[in-house]
């Protein structure tokens, strides 16, 4: 007998009947968000936007400390200097360092944009959500109110409120969010109403799910996509509105700076040939608007299930 087999006890143990193992999904699951991210990554323009936003945010955080000047320090012996080794973006009419001011302005412009978008998001989700879930008469009244406020021109209202409030960062954010949340509320309401009718939501209700469960598991995750796109596109709108306000002298007051106020300050100086003072904030604000717009567009495409392969 060649090849002796070791017969052990375990060999005669009954095979484990593990039905869970049989049903196991052998490949890694691609979640909805993985899929969105994969499609977003394929969109070159959107990725450029995302990288630009990250760079702009980093510069807004670290830029003001990079060359040892402060945004308010005036040096009247160094007025209207062209960009040079010491003042990388030159100086303004009061001899302030424009590199520091530009990135300090970035900080304020981006902060206002993000805060306005965040507050709009919270107010919109709460109002739109309540409206859609309540339904009936409450929904009708709430949406009528929203519609009437929405018909009042946005920028006009913002300007009007800023006339009353003291200029500053937080008044600007308040002025923008007083009417700015309505598009979000309408979007959220539409999403929730549409989702509420879906079979899986009905099924979960029939199975006895509480409202909080339905919200957490079905309504919120599934309406997140369009809401995210809206938030991304609200940011440039808010930055633009802030710039317009500051440009009209109703926004950020000196010695603080935002891109809008820097552009406004530079307006007088282009006639004497100091074009760089205008070009830098104008370029930065356009770049930011560009970045958020292409990222928003890219997200919109990436989230569109019709484009799914």
């Amino acid at each position, binding site marked *: 007998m060649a090849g002796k087999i070791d017969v052990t006890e375990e060999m005669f143990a009954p095979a484990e009947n593990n039905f869970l193992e049989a049903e196991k999904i052998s490949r890694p699951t691609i979640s909805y968000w993985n899929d969105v991210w994969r499609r977003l990554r394929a969109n070159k323009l959107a990725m450029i936007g995302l990288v630009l936003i990250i760079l702009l945010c980093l510069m807004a955080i670290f830029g003001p400390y990079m060359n040892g000047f402060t945004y308010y320090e005036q040096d009247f012996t160094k007025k209207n200097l062209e960009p040079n080794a010491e003042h990388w973006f030159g100086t303004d009419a009061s001899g302030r360092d424009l590199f520091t001011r530009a990135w300090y302005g970035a900080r304020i412009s981006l902060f206002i944009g993000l805060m306005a978008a965040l507050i709009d998001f919270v107010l919109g989700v709460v109002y739109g959500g309540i409206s859609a879930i309540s339904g009936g008469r409450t929904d009708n009244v709430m949406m009528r109110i929203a*519609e*009437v*406020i929405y*018909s*009042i*021109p*946005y*920028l*006009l*209202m913002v*300007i*009007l*409120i800023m*006339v*009353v409030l003291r200029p500053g960062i937080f008044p600007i954010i308040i002025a923008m969010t007083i009417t700015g949340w309505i598009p979000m509320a309408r979007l959220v309401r539409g999403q929730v109403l549409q989702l509420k009718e879906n079979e899986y939501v009905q099924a979960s209700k029939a199975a006895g799910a509480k409202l909080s469960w339905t919200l957490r598991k079905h309504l919120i995750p599934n309406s997140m996509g369009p809401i995210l796109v809206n938030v991304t596109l609200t940011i*440039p709108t808010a930055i*633009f509105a802030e*710039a*317009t306000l500051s*440009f*009209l*002298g*109703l926004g950020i007051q000196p010695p603080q700076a935002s891109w809008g106020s820097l*552009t406004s300050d*530079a*307006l007088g100086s*282009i*006639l004497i040939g100091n*074009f760089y003072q*205008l070009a830098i904030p*104008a370029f930065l*604000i*356009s*770049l930011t*608007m*560009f970045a958020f*717009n*292409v990222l928003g567009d890219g997200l919109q495409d990436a989230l569109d299930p019709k484009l799914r392969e």
Partner: protein
Amino acid sequence: MIMIRYILHRFMWAIITLWATITITFIIMHSIPGDPFAKEGTMTESMYENLQRYYNLDKPKIVQYVIYLKQVALLDFGPSIKSKTLTVNDYIEKGFPVSFHLGAQAMIIAIFFGLILGVIASLYRNRWPDYTSMIIAIIGISVPSFVLATLLINFLAVKWSFFPVATWKSWSHTVLPSIALAMMPLAYIARLMRTSMIEVLNQDYILTAKAKGLRKNAVIIKHAIRNALMPVVTVLGILTANVVTGSFVIEHIFGIPGIGEMFVKGIMNRDYPVILGSTVFYSAILIFLIFIVDVVYTWIDPRIKVTGASK
């Protein structure tokens, strides 16, 4: 019959919106601390009282509000506080034709070139005309109008003197502000038209039109463009609102004596009747325009069925 009811219904909502705007504006303007005459020190007590009475500031707020509503209903926006002789109506009469000219010119530029760019982009999809059009559109959306305006002034007016600026006399004065104002809606229309055209061009009726031997131009003009226009019409109201509010800044930069400039000056001088009057006037125009767009839209698009009250 249903159409008439629909129009009446929309009209009623337009009036309610206008009333809400007037009320909100009134509340905002009257919540400003202090009063407009407090600063002027040489005033005697009786002068002050006379002024208060002249502007109805001595009456309770609610009475002032009712008086104001009545005035507005009669299209009278009251006297300006800073100018001794002019009323707000005088300002509007002087400024409106200028602003209207600028706004209309900008809208025409935006619609005309926006549609052309959008159609070209859709017909040459993913080729260079498409990319060029969409780069123009992205620039139009990214560059704020005041930045564009200052750039235009810097290069076309100051450096190369192609156009005059800073007044409003001849047609050549209107070119740069109109372009600056038109760029954003132009970009928006171009993008929307492109998307809409691409969708329409994939429809079966386009295939049918081609199959029955219609020439390419006829298919594009008669079938594709006409149907693709619908979404553009819907946003015209909002875009016009953008042009109107954008005109504050543009008129201010170019020194154009329109309502926008009057509004901005009113803000800088804290001339409350002027601010109140121009806000109400602007809102009335916008609400009216959106009403018109709504009605026109249901009229040109047979697919929309008007169903009375529900939206």
